[in-house]
C-alpha cells in the first residue's frame, strides 16, 4: 500500500540513450512533482502537474519531458541522456492547491540514475 511509488529504483544507462521513470500515487492527490537531487544533495524541483496540467517547469532542458496520463501518474522521459543527468530523481504528490495542507508533499523512494 505504498503511497508514492517509482520504477525503476536504479537505472544505469549509456550516454545518448532515452529512458523513462514512472511514478504513481494512490493518495488521491491532485498535484504531482518531479525533483532532482544532484551530487551535492541539492533537491530541486523540475516540474509539477495539477490534474494533468503543467504548473511548474523550472528551466529544465527540453530533453526532459513529463507526461501525466491521469492525475495518479506522472512519468518522466529523458532523451539523449548526458553524464550530468546522473542524479537521484524523486517524484512527489500533494493535495489540492486550495487545501491548506497542499504544501506537505509526499515523496517516492527515488530513482538513482547513472549515466556512463
Amino acid at each position, binding site marked *: 500500500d505504498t503511497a508514492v511509488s517509482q520504477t525503476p529504483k536504479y537505472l544505469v544507462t549509456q550516454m545518448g540513450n532515452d529512458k523513462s521513470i514512472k511514478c504513481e500515487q494512490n493518495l488521491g492527490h491532485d498535484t504531482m512533482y518531479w525533483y532532482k537531487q544532484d551530487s551535492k544533495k*541539492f533537491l530541486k*524541483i523540475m516540474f509539477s502537474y495539477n490534474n494533468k496540467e503543467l504548473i*511548474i517547469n523550472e528551466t529544465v532542458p527540453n530533453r526532459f519531458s513529463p507526461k501525466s496520463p491521469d492525475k495518479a501518474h506522472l512519468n518522466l522521459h529523458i532523451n539523449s541522456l548526458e553524464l550530468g543527468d546522473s542524479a537521484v530523481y*524523486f517524484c512527489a504528490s500533494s493535495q489540492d*492547491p486550495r487545501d491548506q495542507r497542499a*504544501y506537505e*508533499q509526499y*515523496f517516492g523512494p527515488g530513482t538513482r540514475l547513472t549515466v556512463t
Partner: protein
Amino acid sequence: DQQVKQNSPSLSVQEGRISILNCDYTNSMFDYFLWYKKYPAEGPTFLISISSIKDKNEDGRFTVFLNKSAKHLSLHIVPSQPGDSAVYFCAATTIFGNEKLTFGTGTRLTIIP
C-alpha cells in the same frame, strides 16, 4: 543563488539531549516553512511546518521556531532518540504561489546512544 541554507552539514547529539537544526533563508516572500526527514534510500518525509503568522509550532518531540526578522528557523528535537538519525531538510514556499518548495541542502543528524 541558494535561497534556503543549512550551514551545518552534520550534527551529532547524545541520546536524550536536545537536537537543534538551523536554517536560514534570503527570500522575504517566503511565508510557509517545512522540515523534512530523510533516511538513506528513501524519499523525504514531511515532519512539521510553520506559517509566517506564527513563531512557534509544536508536535510531540518536534518544535519549529521562526524568527522572521532574522530570516531564520530552527527545528528542536527533544529528547533525541536513535531513530532520529537521518538527514533533515528545511524547505520554504509562498502560500499564494504554486506550491513550489525550495529546499536547503540538508543536515545529517546522528544520535549517539
